[in-house]
């Protein structure tokens, strides 16, 4: 399963001993493995958080991320290599593990399948219906997804959802949810992902850690767009978006929109016309989850009545 290292550090890395090797993993079209010299420093941080991305069917991961410990408490102690090329260093285990997660996300984002749009979005499923939650960073996307998982939804992603023509979703990116300390406190009674995590500013929590499982219905269709927006102290409420408003919001949440506008815009307008869209203003997570569930219930009812979905 070892990818062939080609970078200038390949010979150097060949002489190192890796105590922990994780993988092979798949993040959408991106495949990789992780090797760390020190198991104690990184296995607790990475093994659990990357576990949902394990894919034994990957025979030759395209990337190997290596973490080398220079052994001294110096700036840049932990050096990260990508296929034998040094890509960064930090004295902090937390930052270094964050760098691996970052590389994972970037890899997923840059390997879009042809003909789909990649939305910066969370995704959850319930009763066979799929909710996509596009939002910019810090809008409360991961926290909302976590709240929905706690309420019995199953999990697609908290970062990227790929949607194709006719609102089709054929892939998932079930990475561990990245939850800031404030979100962790909000969710309450959450087990620390590893010993010592309580001191860290952000936790990577798997869907399993929130007592949820992977989405059972893949491929599926996007049935509801919810654009979450956290506002401290706000009155939690939900409002409909017109197809035009939804299109603009979707464009703003589409990776590489600028380069692919000619392809993405027709696809996103189609999505906005086919899939109902709501903006969810969140002051209180519990209330927000209830409102989202209520909204999905209306769609389920409409679907069972044999109605056709439309975005109005």
């Amino acid at each position: 399963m070892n990818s062939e290292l080609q970078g200038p550090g390949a010979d150097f890395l060949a002489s190192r001993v890796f105590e922990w090797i994780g993988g092979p993993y798949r993040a959408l079209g991106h495949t990789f493995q992780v090797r760390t010299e020190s198991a104690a420093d990184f296995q607790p941080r990475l093994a659990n958080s990357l576990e949902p991305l394990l894919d034994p069917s990957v025979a030759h991961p395209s990337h190997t991320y290596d973490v080398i410990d220079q052994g001294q408490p110096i700036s840049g102690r932990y050096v990260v290599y990508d296929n034998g090329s040094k890509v960064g260093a930090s004295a902090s285990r937390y930052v270094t593990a964050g760098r691996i997660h970052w590389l994972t996300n970037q890899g997923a984002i840059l390997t879009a399948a042809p003909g789909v749009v990649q939305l910066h979005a969370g995704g959850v499923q319930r009763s066979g219906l799929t909710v996509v939650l596009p939002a910019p960073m810090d809008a409360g996307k991961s926290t909302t997804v976590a709240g929905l998982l706690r309420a019995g939804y199953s999990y697609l992603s908290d970062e990227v959802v790929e949607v194709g023509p006719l609102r089709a979703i054929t892939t998932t990116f079930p990475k561990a949810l990245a939850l800031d300390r404030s979100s962790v406190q909000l969710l309450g009674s959450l087990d620390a992902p590893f010993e010592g995590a309580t001191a860290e500013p952000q936790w990577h929590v798997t869907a399993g850690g929130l007592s949820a499982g992977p989405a059972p219905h893949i491929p599926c269709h996007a049935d509801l767009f919810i654009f979450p927006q956290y506002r401290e102290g706000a009155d939690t409420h939900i409002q409909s978006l017109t197809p035009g408003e939804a299109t603009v919001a979707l464009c703003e949440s589409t990776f590489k929109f600028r380069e692919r506008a000619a392809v993405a815009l027709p696809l996103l307008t189609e999505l906005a016309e086919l899939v109902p869209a709501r903006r969810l203003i969140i002051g209180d997570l519990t209330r927000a989850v209830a409102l989202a569930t209520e909204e999905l219930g209306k769609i389920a009812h409409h679907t069972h009545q044999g109605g056709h979905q439309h975005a109005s």
Partner: protein
Amino acid sequence: MPADAQTDVSRRLTSAPEIRDDLMAANVGDEMVVFDPQTQQMHRLDPMAALVWQLLDGTASVDQTCREISEELGVDVERVRVDITTLVADLEQRHLLVGTLPTNGIEKTAAADEHGYWVSMPMTGCVASVTSLGWSDLIGIDVAGRGIGIRTNTPALAQQVRELFGSHVVGDTDDAFPNISLRAPEAEGEGKKDLGRLYTRCTLVGRSANLDELLARMLREVDGVVAPFASDAMRIHGAILEVDGVGAVMAPEPAWTRLVPHERSLAQDGIRLIARDGVLDANGTVHIPPTRIQPSAAAGSAGPLAALGQELTLKLRGWLLETGEPAGLAIAPGRGAMLAQAAIVNASLLDPQETLQGLTRVMESTPLVTYIGEWRSIAENVRACVTRV
């Protein structure tokens, strides 16, 4: 109505506005959405605006258009005039009409224009107050072919940022691109302890006494800056050699550092080391931002280098790779491609997979040569690339 406003309305009524032809528009139900590639902004038009949009083709004055709508809908013409002039004013403000786009770009600073490929974004926070905080370093990093400026308040913090981004660091830049600004938490000591701060586009996005927290958060901010802008272009880190104005030969790292000592000898042979780093597109054209052109190459330049201040584009004629093996044209392109790919992976891109697919396509039509670290060998093989085409 104030006199100025009255004049504005009169001006609009006699004008014949025309929608810019570079906009991308799509109907959504009875609304319309418009993407402006110049400003990178999305606009939504309500049903009334979407209707009028179709009429603004530059052939009729606003007044004529108002009369037509009035007759068509049987609505009082004065009321239509109010609505339409308001709408035209709105479209003007959004720079969607011909002649309303400022020539220096709306969202770009002059310096961003100069640098071309740097990510330029509107500053959304309190720019003056953040700028006045005092900064020491501005580090340029390259993520997925886009440049990002990260500003720090101490050299020690800058060093940590450079280490964190490793090979993504493309050098220091000027203070025109503080996409991200990072202040270290103040050291423990007498007086009030100041928390570290992280700003994106001069908007405060994080405060913490824990520097690691801010660094990790900064990684995510880089995602936020880059993600919507990630480019398909392939960024090559290394030397770009130009031969008699005919084309470019690229020498990815580590060749760059090995070539520098030979620069003068190569120049005598008509081979100029013109730039460090460039962007290769899928058609095999090398794009070099003006600030990347080597000053020595620019001095007294002729031919394609004469147009200084503009992006330089050259046809890629070949790759120059140092392998430690006998110099010459690579007989096995597959091996050469592999070596070049490794060099480019080393260059920067976070996910080379897409890049490599594009690169492989380009390399199918591009000669690969190897050299040993001696200028005569370099000159011969660079010229071999060009003459083979």
